[in-house]
């Protein structure tokens, strides 16, 4: 995988297409220096006030007996890019049919064991704080999701993505790409060795910063369990300011995206460790014992 990364991407022409609907026009000049503050952009205070109003309304609804929300709101205007990208009609209930009750099979034919270590993909050691991120993937019934694909991607320790559309003027790290994969074990376990990502600025509003996070992509044993999400680090001061994190209006639900520091899994003189379990939706299929044990989908190479 590392050799497939085109290093010319580092020097690619800046893509002026914004990465936020609210972004000011980027220019090649601006990309090479600290961009001038855009006085036209909305302030954090405006966004914080909007988020607080939505949070207060949710708290009031809860006091009036509304059920807890467990997922982000698709319609969450403080995340400006969501305004034209959320369905306005209710999701249509469907009973999953045959194909939806199964998942694509992934195995060690698809993923090499070394792909779970993001610190060995180049000739040297990446800069930053080395960490181990591990946990289990479970379905909604608490059953381990065995032999399934987990994919992650993230910014480097400076908060810079290798993606050509990230023109944040922080250093790229020639020893860090920020992409990893693994296949879960029989107990649903996964483990990645990586570098703690930095916070990075984005253009939702003026001086918007995302809390440090790792993107996770997960498959269950049924396609209806497919999910992409983000893992955060405990105690991040940017949580309260971030419209993407805040799009989950329920604090218990937000907490499910925050890893816990786990000193027992650290390695002396080498790496700190974080633990994060992921729960997919419940199974809708009648399972055989072999499937429950994860015999399917893993080619045992």
């Amino acid at each position: 995988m590392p050799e497939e990364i085109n290093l010319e991407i580092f020097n690619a022409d800046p893509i002026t297409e914004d990465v936020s609907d609210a972004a000011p026009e980027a220019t090649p000049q601006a990309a090479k220096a600290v961009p001038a503050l855009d006085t036209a952009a909305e302030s954090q205070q405006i966004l914080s006030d909007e988020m607080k109003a939505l949070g207060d309304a949710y708290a009031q609804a809860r006091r009036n007996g509304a059920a807890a929300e467990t997922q982000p709101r698709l319609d969450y205007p403080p995340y400006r890019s969501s305004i034209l990208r959320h369905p306005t009609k209710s999701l249509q209930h469907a009973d999953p049919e045959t194909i939806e009750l199964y998942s694509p099979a992934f195995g060690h034919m698809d993923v090499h064991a070394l792909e779970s270590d993001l610190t060995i993909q180049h000739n040297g050691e990446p800069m930053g704080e080395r960490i181990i991120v591990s946990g289990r993937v479970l379905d909604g019934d608490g059953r381990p999701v065995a032999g399934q694909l987990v994919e992650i991607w993230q910014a480097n320790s400076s908060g810079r993505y290798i993606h050509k559309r990230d023109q944040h003027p922080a250093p790229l790290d020639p020893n860090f790409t920020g992409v990893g994969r693994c296949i879960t074990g029989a107990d649903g376990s996964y483990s990645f060795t990586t570098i703690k990502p930095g916070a990075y600025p984005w253009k939702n509003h003026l001086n918007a910063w995302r809390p440090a996070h790792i993107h996770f992509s997960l498959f269950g044993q049924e396609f209806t369990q497919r999910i992409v999400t983000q893992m955060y680090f405990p105690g991040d001061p940017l949580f309260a300011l971030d419209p993407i994190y805040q799009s989950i209006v329920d604090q218990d639900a937000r907490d499910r995206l925050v890893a816990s520091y786990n000193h027992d899994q650290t390695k002396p003189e080498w790496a700190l460790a974080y633990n994060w379990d992921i729960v997919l939706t419940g199974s809708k299929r009648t399972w055989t014992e072999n499937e429950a044990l994860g015999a399917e989908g893993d080619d045992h190479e």
Partner: protein
Amino acid sequence: MSKLTPTPGQTVGPFYGYALPYAKDRELLAPGSAGSIRLQGTVFDGAGHPVPDAILEIWQADAEGQVPQRTGSLVRDGYTFTGFGRSAVGNTGVFTFTTVNPGPTAPGAAPFISVVLFARGLMNRLFTRVYLPENEEALAADPLLSSLEPERRRTLIARRDPDGGLSWDIRLQGDGETVFLDFEGTGAEGSGIEDAGVQDASQ
């Protein structure tokens, strides 16, 4: 009924492009090979503009209606049909897959391809289906399609191109908004509302 509360989803963001795509990700079969067809369309936002930063996955039965359970989607050998594909859209919002027409998974069932959509600006993944247009009788009997008004139903049925391919667009919002699906029994998960009394996985 689920016993643990699912982990929330989050947007795929703008920077999946160096992580999720892989070689031949959209080629369930080699383009031009016997029986292969193109599935192509554009993702549009609520203003009718193409969305240039979306990524889709398809998952489907083979031509005989069998559910594939073979590994190798990420490292295609050129022969094994795994039923899974992934296509990021291009600058004009267009996605393309090379695949086969799925067969019916049960006698009389309307064949469809399962689709999941991710995008920057889209907080959580959206599930939908794209049905083959041919078998009117099967389409009329389909439980999902028959639950929809005609103009909504239309959004889930592909057009057959003269070359045998399928054309099918996704509209996230507004006129012709695509029908997106909620598979949870009570509508609880899709709407993000927790059932009363479920236990919390983290406690």
